[in-house]
């Protein structure tokens, strides 16, 4: 009898705890609106929303490759399974056509959909919560004036218990801090604007800050770099691997054009980001650059000196007589391949972006691993759509594993003063076999923001 009483007591406590958790996790539904009765939107507001949506990169995740803009369906791989982006066009049945402005603002601020369900933080509301009501309303106006597309994403493929949305209330209690962000009155306006964009809409930390085992950004490792979709995301704090330190000017130019003469071209999923930023007012890109440059900090004397040495080495090579001779060096396989296959474009003789970057200036050879060079050498850099762009042919058809490993070892030794990479062969083998799946993106530039995602559905042959 006594044991039965304890058991009954335990059941009651558990039920009470579950009820309390549900009460804590519960969010109300916001009533649907009649899409035909929606107010007309001021064109100036829509234009502002377009710029803000570009800064927020809404199109990058909410468009499937080859699909209609904002109609969702892109699979986002996470350690917990695949999450498919939703349709955020104004379609009443499959999109957000029945969402009121208040429902949209709540989704951005709290990560809750119109029906009151918690959203997965693959939708970066940990950042979007910092966006002002005013900006959310402009984005709403922009999205509500896009073409309505009837499209439903595939259901998420998440393992138990991650497929239980209610548990996200617990995740939020642990990691989510509701915004908006308060400006720091001790800092200049441009810095505050930059922080507002970077920590909010731009959600730079979503890729550039490493995540913990529950997928939350590690706040004490701001912009320390990570690996996303099998691309290495460089640190953009004091540990930036760029040989020539970034500054506000170079960052602003890079963010708006997708390349910089001393740093090379953006690629991987940074490529659609710079394409988007090419379409927004320069002041916004400059504000982002101002804040990021501040996080990077003023480079030490030693870093500045190393940057100058790298630049001098690159300049010297671009002026030296052309020597594409495989046997010009000491005869290692990596060197022979570099001199005969790579140097012709990468000696810096033709300026970036139409010529290859001289690798003395490359962040990739100074990165913690060889993954980005592996990806670019094997799969190339696909041409942009309808505009001039950087481009690189793919070498997966000719390079064997040993040859690529030798090439990477040589590049690291010649162009970086950091220690040799230790996991290059494993990475090469996994990338060549396809175990490591690498999404590749067109080199869309600054002359026009792509309406659809630039992820290719097919290899760049």
């Amino acid at each position, binding site marked *: 009898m006594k044991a039965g009483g304890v058991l009954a007591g335990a059941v009651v406590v558990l039920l009470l705890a579950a009820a309390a958790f549900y009460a804590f996790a519960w969010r109300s539904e916001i009533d649907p609106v009649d899409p035909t009765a929606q107010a007309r939107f001021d064109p100036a507001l829509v234009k502002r929303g377009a710029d803000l949506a570009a800064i927020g990169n809404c199109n990058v995740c909410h468009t499937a490759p080859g699909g209609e803009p904002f109609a969702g369906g892109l699979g986002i791989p996470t350690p917990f399974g695949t999450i498919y982006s939703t349709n955020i066009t104004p379609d009443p049945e499959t999109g957000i056509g029945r969402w009121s402005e208040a429902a949209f603002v709540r989704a951005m601020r709290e990560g809750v959909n119109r029906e009151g369900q918690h959203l997965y933080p693959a939708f970066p509301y940990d950042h979007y919560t910092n966006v002002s009501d005013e900006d959310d309303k402009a984005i709403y106006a922009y999205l509500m004036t896009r073409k309505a597309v009837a499209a439903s994403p595939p259901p998420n493929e998440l393992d138990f218990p991650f497929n239980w949305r209610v548990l996200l209330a617990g995740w939020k209690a642990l990691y989510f801090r509701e915004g908006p962000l308060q400006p720091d009155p001790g800092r200049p306006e441009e810095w505050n604007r930059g922080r507002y964009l970077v920590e909010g809409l731009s959600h730079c930390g979503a890729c550039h800050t490493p995540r913990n085992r529950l997928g939350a950004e590690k706040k004490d490792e701001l912009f320390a770099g990570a690996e996303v979709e099998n691309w290495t995301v460089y640190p953009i704090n004091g540990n930036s691997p760029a040989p020539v330190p970034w500054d506000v000017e170079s960052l602003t130019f890079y963010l708006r054009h997708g390349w910089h003469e001393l740093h090379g071209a953006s690629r991987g999923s940074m490529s659609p980001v710079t394409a988007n930023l090419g379409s927004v007012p320069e002041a916004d890109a400059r504000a982002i650059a101002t804040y990021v440059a501040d996080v990077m900090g003023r480079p030490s004397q030693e870093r500045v000196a190393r940057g100058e040495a790298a630049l001098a080495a690159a300049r010297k090579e671009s002026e030296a007589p052309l020597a594409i001779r*495989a*046997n010009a060096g000491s005869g290692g396989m990596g060197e022979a391949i570099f001199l005969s296959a790579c140097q012709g*474009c990468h000696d810096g003789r033709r300026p970036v972006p139409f010529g290859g970057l001289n690798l003395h200036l490359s962040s990739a050879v100074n990165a913690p691993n060889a993954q980005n060079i592996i990806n670019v050498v094997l799969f190339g850099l696909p041409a942009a759509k309808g505009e001039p762009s950087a481009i690189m*042919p793919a070498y997966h*058809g000719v390079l*064997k594993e040993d040859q690529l490993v030798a090439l990477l070892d040589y590049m690291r030794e010649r162009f970086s003063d950091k220690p040799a990479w230790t996991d290059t062969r494993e990475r090469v083998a996994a990338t060549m076999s396809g175990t490591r799946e690498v999404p590749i993106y067109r080199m869309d530039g600054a002359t026009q923001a792509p309406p659809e995602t630039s992820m*290719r559905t097919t290899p760049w*042959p």
Partner: protein
Amino acid sequence: MAVTLTVNGKARQVDADPETPLLYVLRDHLELNGAKYGCGIGQCGACTVMVDGTAVMSCVTPLLLLEGRQVTTVEGLGTLDKPGPMQQAFIEEQAAQCGYCIPGMMMRAQALLQADPGASEAAIRAHLEPNLCRCGTHMRIVKAVLRAGELMRQNSQGGGAT
């Protein structure tokens, strides 16, 4: 540097500097003039050939990477008297204007159809994207590749000589 490679089914030994682009090896050493010099920096596709069944820009592929590899050029797809299905399809669709890009187009398309003879028009367009044609013959080229796929599917021999 002597490199032994198989070209259109025949073992060939080439004695040339290791950095020599495959394109020059084919044209100057082996007198196979099908692959064309366009840009010389892997951006136009006129020099495309197949290496072990994959389309490759021969102008940026140095000889030293090719020991023991199987190279196929447009000459390997058939003969004047007996054109292969890809060549036959290009003739039937009259898919050439100046013709300079066509050997590269055929070789890149051949690599696709050998892997997937039923490739859709969308797949063909995406696959041929790196190859440029300045005459604007693209529509006929796409039709010819679709027809080549049909011919290959009809022909139990598959993709012709490789």
